[in-house]
């Protein structure tokens, strides 16, 4: 993967998308990397489509604007595929990670992805229900993104999920999120 990686997240308000972008940025700090994590602030309502962004680089990050040509697109809510052009501006070597129970080949066809682009799916909502007891797909997607980006180890991602969620939640919820991160890493499928 490139030394300078840009990620765009598509989610809906209330799914923890912004938290996921922050956790991933934090985890990428190790090794002296420069990171950015920022959402696009619109009307903040549960269920409203939103975008969040990451930049990860070996160099100082000076761009202060939304990511237009993401190397990786993470779709937290697959219902957005019907209403939003999640592939806008993506380069030919981009990767898509979609929270879906479907086969990645099926979504490759739906997205009209080019052969040079990689398409991944992970059933993040189901994994979240299994591990956390709530349909919060964000930690699972951090795990999947860890695998696809290759920037950090799964141990680093898990330890950062623990650190970030530890401030707010009970031990049970934290353990569930760590497990969800691990399963996201292990169960993400390419097709």
């Amino acid at each position, binding site marked *: 993967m490139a030394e300078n990686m840009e990620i765009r997240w598509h989610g809906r308000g209330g799914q923890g998308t912004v938290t996921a972008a922050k956790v991933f940025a934090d985890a990428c700090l190790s090794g002296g990397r420069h990171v950015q994590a920022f959402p696009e602030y619109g009307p903040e309502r549960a269920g409203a489509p939103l975008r969040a962004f990451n930049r990860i680089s070996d160099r100082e990050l000076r761009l202060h*604007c939304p990511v237009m040509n993401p190397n990786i697109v993470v779709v937290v809510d697959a219902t957005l595929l019907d209403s939003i052009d999640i592939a806008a501006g993506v380069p030919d070597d981009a990767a898509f990670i979609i929270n879906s129970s479907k086969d990645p080949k099926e979504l490759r066809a739906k997205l009209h992805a080019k052969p040079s682009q990689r398409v991944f799916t992970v059933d993040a909502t189901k994994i979240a229900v299994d591990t956390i007891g709530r349909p919060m797909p964000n930690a699972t997607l951090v795990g999947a993104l860890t695998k696809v980006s290759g920037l950090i180890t799964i141990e680093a991602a898990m330890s950062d999920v623990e650190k970030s969620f530890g401030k707010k939640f009970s031990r049970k919820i934290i353990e569930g999120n760590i497990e969800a991160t691990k399963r996201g890493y292990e169960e993400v499928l390419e097709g």
Partner: protein
Amino acid sequence: MHRKVAANGNEAIANAMRIANPDVCGAYPITPATEIMQRFTTFVSNGKVKTEMVLAESEHSAMSACIGAAAAGGRVATATSSQGMALMWEMLFIASGLRLPIVMGMANRALSAPINIHGDHSDGMGARDCGWIHLYCENAQEAFDNMLMAFKLAEHMDVRLPVMVGMDGFITSHAIQTMEWIDDETAANFIGEYKSTNPLLDIKNPVSYGPLILADLYMEYRKAQEHVMSGVPKVVLDIAKEFEQISGRKYGLFEEYRLDDAEVAIVVMSSAAGTTKEIIDQFREKGIKVGLLKPRLFRPFPYAEVGEALKHLKAVAVLDRADCFGGSHGPLYVDIASALYNYAQRPVLINKIFGLGGRDYMPDHAEYVINELLQITKDGKVKSVKEYIGVRE
């Protein structure tokens, strides 16, 4: 010792305030600066600072509380944005006129109407002439650094004036970025102990604040204020030198980026300067001599130094994230034009208004402006001095 973290601008400002440990903080919440006070009041509740929090009923009252506390002899800080700054406006002049070293973080945001919560410089520019010192920041690191330096600057015995530290609302206040903390002890020692001058609470030496001064002496008072302001740039530079020793980071009155040998340049403040630098590098790779000047000390404006830095250029575009209504140019353009007017040889100057109400400033906007400057150097033709860019047609 210096810890690298991922933090946003609000967190940076709140932590600088924690390190400064003010005696009093009068505040009222407003987006996007709310998080500064939310974090700071947590420090207060957890006993990390000894600050007395005054949760006022409005920004006018918050600033009034700051003024009273500063006159009483305490170190005082607060934070605001947009309408909050506008509601403080009357009291901003009282703070500077009374020479009270209040420090205020400002997440710059658009003004109503229409109501808009996003970033632009309308609030700070509206308070341009209120006698405060203004520092502006490109990113969270600069917000932290400038906020620390602001305490030392405001409280310097040759200054004793209030300072506001501006960063772009949301773009900087809410974006998590890599930055470096300075350890608390080093930073606190850098700021130093607060020394009060003529405190109201010194009952053995009673003083009066805010007396009536009529035509017999009002003008002399104002001239004295102007004299103090004119000495601020030297103190800003002295403090920056001292700050470099603890941080390794250099600060000036403004930042010059690839400007020495440039033929054309952009002048722009805050976060847009970072995006512009990336595009300047792309032009430089093609051998095109483009540079940037980023104002940091906006008030008092270092006219002479800015004029010297820009006079050799062929064409300059000043990008304003605020407009002055009434057929005039943007506020930064007016200052740059003043800085250059007395030179017989000076660059052609154009003005772009951008990024109002949080409209994104994208790399292609910088590219568009630079291409226009290059065209001016070729044929000398200016299509219009002032133009709105990034506007939907």
